[in-house]
């Protein structure tokens, strides 16, 4: 139960500071999760880093929910190594214009994580020093992790559907 009170503390402190901007707070499997908005995300991250001691950026990734108004969720995982506490922050952004400010000014390590997210989901991190594709070829043309793109290479000719029962 100790963790829950800790999470409560963080929640209270965040609400004091950011008010309405911290929404949809939940606690799946003991991990404090909340949603915020892209105009305050950098403030939230730096506040968490500087004031609340979440000094370690575990990961940045994205999730695609097609058909919604804000179809791409950028997910940050932070870690407070001293209190042994993790936190998850989500920002929902629009699929047509997926932009969000970069976190590279808060953590240098965010650089490649954001490049990967850009490569796979097409999220444009504004102010990123070097936003290029990282895993795929430059001429791929699509952001393959978006749900509308198939897993298999659509240009394959040697794989005939009849052999696979489709």
């Amino acid at each position, binding site marked *: 139960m100790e963790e829950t009170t800790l999470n409560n503390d963080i929640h209270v402190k965040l609400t004091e500071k950011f008010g309405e901007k911290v929404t949809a707070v939940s606690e*799946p*499997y003991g*991990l404090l*999760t909340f949603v915020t908005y892209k105009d305050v995300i950098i403030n939230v991250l730096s506040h968490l880093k500087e004031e609340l001691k979440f*000094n*370690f*950026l*575990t*990961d940045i*990734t994205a*999730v*695609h929910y097609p058909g919604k108004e804000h179809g791409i969720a950028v*997910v940050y*995982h932070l870690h407070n*190594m001293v209190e*042994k506490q*993790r936190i*998850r922050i989500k920002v929902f952004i629009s699929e047509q214009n997926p932009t969000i400010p970069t976190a590279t000014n808060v*953590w*240098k*390590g965010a*650089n*490649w*994580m954001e490049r*990967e997210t850009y490569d*796979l989901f097409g999220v444009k991190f504004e102010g990123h020093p070097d936003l*290029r*594709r*990282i*895993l*795929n*070829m*430059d*001429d791929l043309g699509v952001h*393959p*992790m978006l749900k509308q793109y198939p*897993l298999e290479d659509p240009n394959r000719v040697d794989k005939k559907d009849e052999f696979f029962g489709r």
Partner: protein
Amino acid sequence: MNHNHPVFTDNDPQSELVTLNLGPTHPATHGVFQNVLQLDGERIVSGVSTIGYIHRAFEKIAEHRPFYQITPLTDRLNYCSSPINNMGWHMTVEKLLNIQMPKRVDYLRVIIMELSRIADHIICNTIIGQDTGATTTFLYLFQFREHIYEIFEEVCGARLTTNIGRIGGFERDFNDIAFAKIDKFLKEFPKALKEFENLLSRNRIFIDRTAGVAEVTKETALEYSWTGPLLRATGVDYDVRVSDPYSSYQDFDFEVPVGTSGDIYDRYLVRNEEMWQSVRIIEQAIVKLKTEPKGIFHADVPEFYLPPKQEVYNNMEALIYHFKIVMGEIDAPKAEVYHAVEGGNGELGFYLINDGGRTPYRLHFRRPSFINYQMFAPMSEGMLLSDAIINMSSMNIIAGELDA
């Protein structure tokens, strides 16, 4: 070759700098990553890393595979220590489904995970030896990887990409031969590791090549999200096994070695000490197993644990569960879960979003090699080329994990 970025286009003959293309298939890089370096003599002025040469789209595949078919993918992440990845994945799903594992299964898992940690560190440390000119260490200690493989073969039938275990436990119990082999390993490996340390740890050439090279401060390491032996070498005692214990690691008595300066020598020492600690953990696990009831090798969760084949053919109940699991008619909670394990290279995280379907809605791997490696190019600035090569091997970058 239009896939490469023309990183340095300055071909001015008056320029003192030389552009060197290191990789993607360079014998010294032990993997496929490209670094375009600009050299002033032998000193690196700047560098740009290009990765993605074996990008295999794990995360996209995972969205098309049921949970139990994702284990083979995790095998191929960090293939030097596949069982840690396998079990990390199994534990993620178990966390999602709220399955409590029996203690005996936890201890068996700990044995396998620590064996693979040893296997992983053997690769890294012997390769550092190899790159500083000591081929003996590689040929000698690599033998013990074979012994670890033999244990894995006894448990699951495969050597390298093990696909070991299942969601809910193990596929079968460890047999007596497996335990005998583990005992033999525990008897022989410390001697060999001692000899290995005698060869390198106080070797003047080795120390000259590694001590004080590529020093990293705690602050920089944390800034770049380093984890694992690399972070511990800088002096931060962060180990997922301790800070967020999984698989009953809290029952074991072991130390987390830390370095002071974060240089290559410290990383080598940290990895070596971790191998000693792993041996200690395995010894404790063997003792603990003796007090646990025999024959338990999976949790009693028939709706998630695939039943043995002979029962599927002979037993109605097992057949039903088999059908339900394979056809994906099991209700899994709609939830998201993050689970981290201490992999060979650091915190290996699984971020799983389940929408109640047969396959994950989204599965993201937090891959330590990927995150650790981004510091290589900035770190190399001002370093000698030959030092950068050992620096790269001491970071133990596994291409499969790097590119996913």
